[in-house]
């Protein structure tokens, strides 16, 4: 048992989360029972080896973001535990960087200043500028360093955020529906770039998405969560080379299976 824990980068054991709901709120939830109402995560367990690109999918409101905040150390679980490198998570760390669902760039800083935040404070100025420019270029934002977030498009803001995360050289990158608010074409571009990023950097990526195709195209593994209170509904490995064509046979079947498990009956 001990050995299994040290082999995996992330070990999630029987994770539980309940939110205390205010009494007034409770009355309006007619369908659920009072007890069930606040339960978001109900015994979530999985383990993730180092370097794995894991995609999480699940219905909206099932607790994906909640799980993400717990694993990255921003919230306490109500029960169960999360181990990273065999150590219990007690708080956030700059070795495990998050790209949150909401816009996380500081709007009072330029793109360059934002990315520099990732480098911390104790390094010399010339080195900082050089490194920041390098990472801005990596995400395709060369020349936009002096723009404020409100002067950038949604896609560019996300790129800057990815640059800020990558510059810390994290061991784990958490991304919570990072491209959910972007238009379709930008989303496709970002997908391609995420594949490159994962190949360039040696890190474990936990990627939440509501886009099943995105998960199929990116993930070394897909973990599907059930509706609230959520548990692991399906956990599968995708051992296919990139770039992936989703219209070819094995991936097509898998997609069908996911749709089926999600209770969707659409023709593909």
């Amino acid at each position: 048992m001990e050995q299994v824990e040290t082999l995996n980068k992330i070990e999630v054991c029987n994770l539980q989360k309940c939110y205390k709901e205010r009494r007034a709120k409770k009355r309006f939830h007619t369908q659920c029972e009072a007890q069930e109402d606040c339960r978001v995560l109900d015994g979530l367990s999985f383990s993730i080896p180092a370097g794995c690109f894991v995609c999480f999918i699940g219905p909206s409101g099932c607790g994906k973001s909640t799980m993400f905040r717990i694993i990255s150390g921003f919230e306490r679980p109500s029960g169960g535990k999360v181990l990273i490198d065999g150590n219990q998570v007690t708080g956030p760390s700059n070795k495990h960087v998050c790209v949150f669902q909401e816009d996380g760039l500081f709007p009072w800083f330029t793109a360059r200043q934002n990315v520099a935040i990732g480098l911390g404070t104790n390094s010399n100025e010339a080195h900082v500028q050089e490194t920041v420019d390098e990472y801005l270029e990596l995400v395709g934002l060369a020349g936009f360093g002096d723009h404020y977030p409100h002067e950038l498009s949604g896609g560019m803001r996300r790129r800057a955020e990815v640059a800020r995360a990558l510059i810390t050289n994290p061991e784990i990158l958490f991304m919570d529906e990072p491209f959910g608010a972007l238009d379709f074409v930008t989303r496709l571009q970002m997908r391609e770039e995420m594949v490159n990023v994962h190949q360039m950097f040696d890190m474990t990526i936990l990627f939440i998405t509501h886009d099943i195709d995105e998960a199929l195209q990116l993930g070394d593994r897909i973990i599907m969560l059930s509706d609230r209170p959520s548990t692991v509904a399906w956990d599968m490995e995708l051992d296919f080379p990139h770039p992936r064509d989703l219209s070819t046979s094995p991936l097509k079947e898998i997609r069908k299976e996911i749709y089926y498990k999600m209770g969707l009956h659409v023709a593909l």
Partner: protein
Amino acid sequence: MALRYFGFLLIFSLLVLVWHLVVTLFDVPEYVFPKPVSVAKAIEEMIQSGQLYRNSVASLFRVTCGFYMAVVTAVPLGLVLGRKSHLRIFLNPLIQFLRPISPLAWIPIALMWFGIGDRPAIFLIFLSSFFPLVVFTTSSVLSIRTTYLRVAKNFGLNGLDLYRKVILPAALPDIITGIRITLGTAWLVIVAAEMIAVKSGLGYLIIDARNSLRMDKVVAGMVAIGLIGLVLDHIIRFLERMPSVEWSRLRR
């Protein structure tokens, strides 16, 4: 921009015109409400004698001192209160208790403590600005988006760095709005304070003019107060256009 100034001039000319018509049509005596022409003459006279300039500077000096002292103490206190809930629980009742007491109610005490002169007036301005600024700053810190705080925590920002790079800039647009509103109040208070506590300033000028039954000078003083208030507001609005503050207006 040009349109804005044009609109400004238009509305003021209209106001003066209506004022003139009403006063002449109803044959209002000068000691009840003076004609625009008499006020203009009074303004000219007071500019010539240096009276207007001297008293405006006196009032502005007091407001600047008192308000500056309030900003440099209230904003840091508010920034800390916004982050430390324990401290907030202790100090908030006290602040909320002192805040609704009008600064004018402090006049007797101010005179007792500081005697006659600039100092009691400065103290009153300080009081009138301090409490609202603390409350504004605290609430602007409390309304910083959680995501920004999480990002800061994620990248290991803490202590002074956290304040400098995240808390202060995130709260700054709201703080500046608070400063703008509070400065308006301070300007209101100074005139009232000068009517009672001191022998110079625009408030004193108005009371003095009334005592010598010069209604034209009273209205001239009011015009000066209004114009200076307008200019003060404009200066603060420059702050709102700084690139590190502008984001809150331009976002979405």
